[in-house]
């Protein structure tokens, strides 16, 4: 250990630090940076599973997928999903948090908060099972509700026109972790602001408009950015609910990548699609980070 004792303390700290860091560092390279590089590499080949890497075809995989209507349809679907999320479900947790904040009784508030949390842990497979039955053309309650309202019946998940809405709609129950974050923002409003508002004779809607919503703004904005990024990666729910159908009308890029790999058995094209998604996502995330920074100032 003479060697160790002779080292100056700074060096010693760095070496110990490297030992501490080593497992995490290696796992990060192995499980994230290596796959993305390997995927990029594969995207330039007509990848042969038996004799990798197969023929080097430069950008042909990219030109092939760019010529496929389905590829662009997947992007289009994705944009529709983003719009639907913001139109239908994104605001539900905001409303729920405002409601919980107004409820004065402690036990009511706590009980409701506990139950509102549950949607965070219901797996997509279970959601899909339940809602597939709710949407069942002949035995589901979705149709018995619409027909009771005189709107007729629909084949929700088999109809290209409705399928995307039907996939997003289960989110309307809201709740989850996001709602808790909004609630935390509301709880962080100092009492003296309420006191001041009370003295000024603020009524309930004014309170929400001029005090509560401004305090939630930052959190809601960040969640909106998260929601956009998450919509780009949407995979599980449409996959489990419809598998991308009917006629690929609910397919996302994630499902497109999987189908290209699984059905068309083309690793090269699947990797090319992955890489385009990576680039787009990187640009989007970076842009959103910058927007967020300027928003925060």
């Amino acid at each position, binding site marked *: 250990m003479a060697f160790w004792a002779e080292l100056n303390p700074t060096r010693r700290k760095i070496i110990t630090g490297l030992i501490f860091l080593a497992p995490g560092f290696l796992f990060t390279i192995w499980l994230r940076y290596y796959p993305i590089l390997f995927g990029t590499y594969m995207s330039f080949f007509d990848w042969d599973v038996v004799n990798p890497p197969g023929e080097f075809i430069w950008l042909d995989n990219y030109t092939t997928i760019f010529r496929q209507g389905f590829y662009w349809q997947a992007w289009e679907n994705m944009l529709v999903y983003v719009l639907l999320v913001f139109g239908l479900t994104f605001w539900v947790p905001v409303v729920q948090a405002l409601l919980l904040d107004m409820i004065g009784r402690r036990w009511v508030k706590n009980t409701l908060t506990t139950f509102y*949390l549950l949607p*965070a842990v219901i797996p997509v497979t279970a959601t899909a099972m339940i*809602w597939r039955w709710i949407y069942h053309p002949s035995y589901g309650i979705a149709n018995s509700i619409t027909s009771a309202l005189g709107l007729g019946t629909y084949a929700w998940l088999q109809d290209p026109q409705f399928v995307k809405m039907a996939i997003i709609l289960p989110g309307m129950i809201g709740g989850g972790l996001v709602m808790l974050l909004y609630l935390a923002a509301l709880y962080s409003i100092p009492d003296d602001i309420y006191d001041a508002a009370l003295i000024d004779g603020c009524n309930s809607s004014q309170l929400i408009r001029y005090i509560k919503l401004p305090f939630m703004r930052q959190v809601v904005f960040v969640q909106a950015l998260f929601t956009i990024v998450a919509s780009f990666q949407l995979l599980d729910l449409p996959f489990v609910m419809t598998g991308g159908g009917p006629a690929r009308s609910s397919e996302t890029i994630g499902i497109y990548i999987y189908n290209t790999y699984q059905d068309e058995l083309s690793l090269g094209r699947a990797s090319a699609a992955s890489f385009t998604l990576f680039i787009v996502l990187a640009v989007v995330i970076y842009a959103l980070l910058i927007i967020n920074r300027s928003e925060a100032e």
Partner: protein
Amino acid sequence: MFTIKKLLPSTANTRMHGIIPVYGSYLLGIFFLILIIFPFFYVVSLSLMDTDQIQDTPPSLLPDSPYRVTVMLDYSAVYAEEPENIDLYLQQDSPLVLMSIPYELDETLGYVEAIGLIDDNVVFHASAHARELDFVRNFGAYQNTGISRASLLRTDFRGVEIYEDFNQEINFEVNLDGIEAVNVPTAQEDSPFAGEISAFLNESYQVHGTITGIYTEQDFGLTLNSYNMYNEFLKASYGEESGTSHLVENYGFLQFFVNTVIVVVFAIACQVTITPLTAYPLSRLFPKRLSDILQLFFLGTTFIPFVVIMIPQFRMFRAMGMYNNYAGLLVPHLLPFGFYVVLYKAFFDRIPSELIDAARIDGAGEFLIFTRIMIPLSRPIFVVVAIYTFLSNVVDFFWAWLIVRDVKLWTMNVALYNISRTGHTSAPVDFLMGATVFTIVPVILITLLLSSKIQSVAMNSGLKG
């Protein structure tokens, strides 16, 4: 005014908002509560119905209370005439009674049993839960057959009597010396359906015994028994596929639950060991420039979401033999999550350096400082990471589904998806709904237990997004 004040505490809240908005928020709050609970309520309710009731139009929301039907038969006369054939007749009467009643009677049935007597001595007892009989019709002995006397008693292509198979699939007991453990219903009133049942049993199905009594009673408890039947059905239909280990055959859904627990616990274990180990040198040991670069390196992984790398990572794992085994399920969780690295680092940064310097002067090594000073002082952040890891992994589906084929390795989500895919077995709807209930209930219970912890984590962790 007084009563309203009693109902609602006169908090600052109420004074600010006024009475009507506060009442409104209670009502709307309960509306959302119903909205959140409804899917769960609906699936539990569906799982307790039989397939006929599930397919009601308009759909019914609550399961009917099913009937327990007991048919008493007397064989004294038959036994006196042809004692050598009594065994055969009893074997035949079992499907004639048990299969015909659910088919002919237009009521929700829970349990059907036939009790045979010779001189007030119970010699024959056959019984089955209604779900069992459904499965017999869908997958068992009477798969794809009509229900009539001829088809119930026919032989299959091997020349074996089908009812012999049937009697092995249900509770069936014959003992001419008398069966002890059977509850013989005594002096009950005949059921309202007695006439109908005895008519078709005597005329269309021609049972050998003489019907001496038909008793029915409604028993909601029978629906709860369905869950047991679903588990048995799972064991029977997927058990043999699970490989040589017989895990699914023995434990049913419990095996999937255990797999899920293994994955989630492993993921949490990794994020509370490897990740803080990674973050500590960034906070305390490296010069600032190196730390900043490394922090970017770890945070950069958030730019590489799962969808982007799933195919290369899948190929990689296959090539390394980590396919269709626990390694494939667990190894991806070794990745220190970039976001958590930053979280740990920020927390470590706030611990006063006097403590650490004092320990260094006393001759403590870095590992000792980490385990004895950093970890005990940063317990809150460990809880935060553990909770978040639990929440994000309990719903994880796609990777587990890609990397695993054997039934014995399925996690709950994988199991539910694979069972629900038509084409494998056309599983009956009530079974699928039962499987969904099995998947949700443990997660909900765990979450309710952890609820206050999760709430305090979300409220105080400063993870505003």
